[in-house]
Every structure is written in structure tokens, then in C-alpha cells.
């Protein structure tokens, strides 16, 4: 088997002038990056890594916003033979101190040889490197794209084996950042070889994406796959999209986009936040698949999306679903493109039934396991476990976490679901994880933060997600035991918790409920039982404003 670096070299020789990426940045004209541009930009960055003494196999963390330097840094690291890991830059709401602490936690475990960032941000990174006591981590400042003619005889990436690591993927928060999903060239290419036929991907497709590259759906489906498969990609910034979601529709119309991937909340968001005047002249009839992936899928979200965009040419049969995770590189299942999505009318929330995530990819074997790890029959709900030839090599530098994640060679997803008619239905999660707008949030991170606020009984906090029909995603609720019984004081503490957790995590917390001492249910081992407390919260507080 080949490697991603070899494929990039082939593109340079055989597809040099073909458009690889149409890069969109608000307020600027679109920039067409050909394969020649892409490889020269990547080669320029690879040379920079060479000058810094970075060697093949070493990890390079990339902290850059959407733009050419990010694109070239990722592919340049691969051409050099290094292992890129893209992380999000600091956002306006997150406190710099928290960002540094989380980054330091990642550095301590991953031990990257280099961190690439903007000159303005280098100070933050340097601070995190000091906190992590990682003097061997170089900080490389990158302001502008660098270009160089590629010398394929010298580039280290072309001498890598397919079993070598090609990239790391992380999820957010202090828990997620300490588990880097390490993937080999072989895993990524096996994923593409199985996924491309499942969506009938062809060179005349056009993929349109606003997704961030530090997440598997953005990185694999909407960045690596199109570049490897020579499918043109229209790439916009997640920040531009969230400010003006109509940009996605406008880009699809302009470039005759055929494929796009969205997390469930984005269906609701687009349906309600796109202005009529922004849709003038927009034609969505080129879309052959809009694929719902990366958080629980709701039929009501699809209905809203269809109602809103059918008048602009969206075909209802273009709606599709997928179940994916970074640990399997990306997709595990995919619904059949161009066919109505199966639903189990008897299952799920409300009256709309449970939505199918489709059939396992040709290279994936799924088992549904009981709590005592017996195989369950069709229709029975259990933990989803999977085996494939595109799984993670390991959690990077985490043999403990890697060992725990597998059972008889099967990766334990922590998600719950069942098989029906050969299709997978995902029903919930065994692990405590909140998914907000496609982002994985670990409740223990939020609980630890809330415990740091004055007036909260430390450790007497439960954080969980509650699905919002309106938003199409989960909303975070924090229930905390208060030291005061005085209502005004409780109001103050609740506000302090909301502000503190919001500024120190990836989520905006909407609801903080202060309760009496001993309200929270604990397990026999003394831990706060999240699901029991969620049920108690729903029965006691749900109808209150």
C-alpha cells in the first residue's frame, strides 16, 4: 500500500493544474489552490521543519486558524514525514489561562517536537511549554505561507511505511486533549477505500465544507478525502459560517456542490437562521448528499431543513446519515445515498421514530455487546463495538487508555445502539459524554470547573446534556449543591458557575441549577451518578423556565 505523501507527489505530477481547494475567507475573493500550489506550499513548510531539525515520525502540533498556512502546514508535515495534529486556536470566550493549562496537559502527554502557530500567539504557547516542562518542544512561528519547489528525493515523507503514523486527532477539553487518536497511513487510506464507494464518490463531485479541521468530520471527510481523491473542495471558515450560515448555501450554489457533511444542530441552525434575501438566486439542486454525522440524529431536524430548502432545489432524497468516530479514522456506517433513510417507527424520542445510521462500511464488523459482554440479538440495545482495518494504532503515549478501549480486538465505542435489518441505530451513550453542536464534551471537566466556584460544595456537582428540539443538539445543564439557602445568594452562585465554566471550557453553559445539600444522588462508591441525577432533574425542573 502507498502513503499520503506518495499520493500527494502523484497529484503534483499528474494533476498539477487541477483545482484542489477553493478557499473562502469572508471579505476576500475566493482563492483557487491547485495541486501544484498545494504541494509547493506543503514543500515550503516541510523545508521549514527540516531547518528546525524536526525528523520523520515526530509530532508537530498545528495551532492556526482556517487559511492557507493551516492547509500547507498539515500537508507539509506529512510530506516531511512528521505527524501533524491540528488544534483549535484560542477563542474569544475562553480564558487564556485555561487554554494554556489544557495545552500544557496535551504537551505533557504527547511531547510534540514542535508547535506551529502565529507570531502573536507564540507567547501563549511558550507559556504552556514551560508549564509542561517540555524544553525539547520547538515553537515555530508562521505568519505567511512559504512556497518551495518540491524535491521528492529529499522529502522524508516519501520514505515512510504505510504502517507509520500519519496524523493525530484530539477531542476537546482537558480529558479529550490527553487522548490523541493516532492513525497510520494505512488506516486513513483503508477508510477512504471503504468510504468513497459507500457514497459513490467520483472526480466530478464537489465537496463543500465549513467544518473545522481539528475534528474528524472536517479533517477526514471534508479535507483529506477530497485532496487524496482529487475531488474539488470548497472550504470556508467555521467562524465565517457560524456568523452567516447562508454562506454554505451560496457556496453550494456557486460551485455546484454535490456533497456536504453537517452535524445535526446545523440542520436546525441553517433552517432558522438563513434570511430569505440571502437565498435569492441560490440553487441547491446540485446536491446529491447532505450527510448528518457526529451527533445524535433527529428526524425533526431533517424535516425542518427540507421544508426550508426544498423551494431552492434541495431534493429530500439527498438527506443521508453516517455514524463516525476518530478512532475508526471517520465513518463506521453510511446510509445509502439517494434513498430514503430508514426509520424505526417504534423506537426513539417522540413520534418520529429512531433514525438509522445506515449499514456498516464494507471493511467494518460491528458487534452489539451486553454489560457482561455477550453478543446481543438483532433489535437488542447494547454497546456498539467495532473492528476494521482503519482503526487507531493507539491513543498516543497512552497504553493504559489504549488497552481499556479494546475487547477481543474490537474497539468499544461507549455508544449504545442496536442492529435492525442490517442497519445500525444509535440510541445513546454508555460513557458519560455530552455532545454539543458536534463537539464532544466530557462532563467530568465541567464538574471539576464548577467545583472551583465559591459557594458550591466541591464534588457535589453533576453535568449532563439535555436534548433541545429547537436547537437540534444537547444543551449543557449543571446541577450543583449550594452552601447557601438564601435565594439571592444562590442566584449569584449560579451566575458565577455559568460564567466560570463557560470561560474555561468549549461550551456556553445555559442552565445552572442550585439545589439543597444531599439533593444529588451518589453511587455506592460515592461518585455522583450522572444519569440518575439527570432523570431527577428532568422530573423536578424541566417545566420551569
Amino acid at each position, binding site marked *: 500500500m502507498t502513503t499520503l505523501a506518495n499520493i500527494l507527489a502523484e497529484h503534483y505530477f499528474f494533476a498539477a493544474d487541477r483545482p484542489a481547494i477553493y478557499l473562502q475567507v469572508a471579505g476576500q475573493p475566493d482563492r483557487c489552490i491547485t495541486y501544484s500550489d498545494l504541494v509547493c506550499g506543503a514543500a515550503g513548510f516541510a523545508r521549514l521543519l527540516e531547518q528546525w531539525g524536526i525528523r520523520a515520525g515526530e509530532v508537530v502540533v498545528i495551532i492556526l486558524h482556517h487559511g492557507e498556512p493551516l492547509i500547507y502546514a498539515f500537508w507539509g508535515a506529512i510530506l516531511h514525514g512528521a505527524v501533524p495534529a491540528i488544534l483549535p486556536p484560542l477563542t474569544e470566550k475562553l480564558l487564556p489561562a485555561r487554554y494554556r493549562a489544557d495545552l500544557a496537559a496535551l504537551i505533557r502527554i504527547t511531547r510534540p517536537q514542535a508547535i506551529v502557530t502565529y507570531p502573536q500567539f507564540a507567547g501563549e504557547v511558550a507559556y504552556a511549554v514551560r508549564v509542561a516542562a517540555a524544553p525539547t518542544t520547538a515553537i515555530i512561528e508562521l505568519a505567511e505561507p512559504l512556497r518551495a519547489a518540491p524535491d521528492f528525493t529529499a522529502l522524508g515523507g516519501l520514505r515512510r511505511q504505510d504502517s507509520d503514523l500519519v496524523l493525530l486527532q484530539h477531542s476537546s477539553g482537558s480529558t479529550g486533549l490527553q487522548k490523541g487518536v493516532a492513525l497510520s497511513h494505512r488506516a486513513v487510506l483503508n477508510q477512504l477505500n471503504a468510504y468513497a464507494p459507500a457514497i459513490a464518490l467520483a472526480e466530478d463531485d464537489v465537496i463543500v465544507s465549513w467544518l473545522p479541521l481539528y475534528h474528524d468530520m472536517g479533517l477526514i471527510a471534508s479535507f483529506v478525502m477530497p485532496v487524496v481523491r482529487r475531488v474539488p473542495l470548497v472550504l470556508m471558515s467555521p467562524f465565517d459560517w457560524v456568523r452567516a450560515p447562508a454562506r454554505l448555501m451560496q457556496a453550494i450554489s456557486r460551485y455546484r456542490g454535490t456533497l456536504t457533511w453537517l452535524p445535526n444542530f446545523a440542520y436546525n441552525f441553517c433552517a432558522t437562521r438563513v434570511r430569505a434575501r440571502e437565498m435569492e438566486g441560490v440553487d441547491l439542486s446540485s446536491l446529491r448528499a447532505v450527510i448528518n454525522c457526529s451527533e445524535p440524529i433527529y428526524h425533526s431536524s431533517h424535516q425542518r431543513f427540507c421544508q426550508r430548502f426544498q423551494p431552492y432545489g434541495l431534493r429530500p432524497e439527498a438527506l443521508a446519515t453516517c455514524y463516525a468516530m476518530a478512532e475508526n479514522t471517520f465513518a463506521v456506517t453510511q446510509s445509502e445515498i439517494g434513498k430514503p433513510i430508514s426509520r424505526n417507527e417504534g423506537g426513539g424520542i417522540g413520534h418520529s421514530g429512531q433514525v438509522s445510521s445506515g449499514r456498516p462500511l464494507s471493511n467494518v464488523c460491528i458487534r452489539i455487546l451486553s454489560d457482561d459482554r455477550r453478543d446481543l440479538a438483532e433489535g437488542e440495545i447494547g454497546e456498539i463495538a467495532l473492528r476494521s482495518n482503519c482503526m487507531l494504532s493507539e491513543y498516543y503515549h497512552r497504553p493504559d487508555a489504549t488497552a481499556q478501549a479494546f475487547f477481543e480486538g474490537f474497539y468499544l465505542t461507549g455508544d449504545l445502539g442496536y442492529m435492525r435489518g442490517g442497519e445500525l441505530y444509535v440510541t445513546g451513550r454508555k460513557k458519560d459524554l455530552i455532545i454539543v453542536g458536534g463537539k464532544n464534551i466530557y462532563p467530568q471537566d465541567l464538574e471539576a470547573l464548577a467545583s472551583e466556584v465559591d459557594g458550591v460544595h466541591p464534588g457535589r456537582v453533576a453535568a449532563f446534556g439535555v436534548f433541545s428540539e429547537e436547537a437540534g443538539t444537547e444543551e449543557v445543564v449543571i446541577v450543583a449543591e449550594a452552601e447557601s439557602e438564601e435565594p439571592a445568594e444562590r442566584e449569584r452562585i449560579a451566575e458565577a458557575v455559568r460564567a466560570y465554566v463557560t470561560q474555561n471550557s468549549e461550551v456556553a453553559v445555559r442552565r445552572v441549577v442550585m439545589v439543597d445539600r444531599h439533593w444529588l444522588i451518589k453511587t455506592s462508591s460515592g461518585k455522583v451518578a450522572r444519569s440518575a441525577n439527570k432523570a431527577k432533574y428532568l422530573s423536578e425542573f424541566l417545566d420551569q*423556565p
Partner: protein
Amino acid sequence: MSDDIIRPLADYIANEILKNPKRAIRPDEKLISSGLIDSFHLVDLGLFVEQRFGVRLDDGELNADTFDTLEQLAALISARKR
């Protein structure tokens, strides 16, 4: 700064974004950098401002670079109304 701009904005944010009608928002309270309003709600706020005050905003015009407090937002709106 004009109260007939700030008041409806404060009510909208408390009721529709924070879902807490009791929450009073001070005119100089930081809204975006404090995380009170996140990027998703900025789009909603933009739609509300257009509808309520009859002004037109450009794509993504409301963001952390253009305002952070009710006072600043009200100034932006009244400048646009003229």
C-alpha cells in the same frame, strides 16, 4: 444611550437567549467576552435587531470586533438608523 434600544435588547437576551427573564443585564456588562452570548446566538441577535429596529446588518456584522456590551450595540444600531 437611548433606553428604547437598550431595553428591548436586554429583554430579548434575557428571555430568548438566556431563557431567564429575571436576569437583568447592565448596559456596560460584557456579553461576548464573558461567554454570555456565544457565536450561535449572535446570528439570532442579528435577526432580532433587523426585525425590531428596521436596520440592515451585513453578514456576520455582529461579532466580538464590533460590540461587547448593550451600550455599544445600541450605538451601532442608532448609527445605522440615521
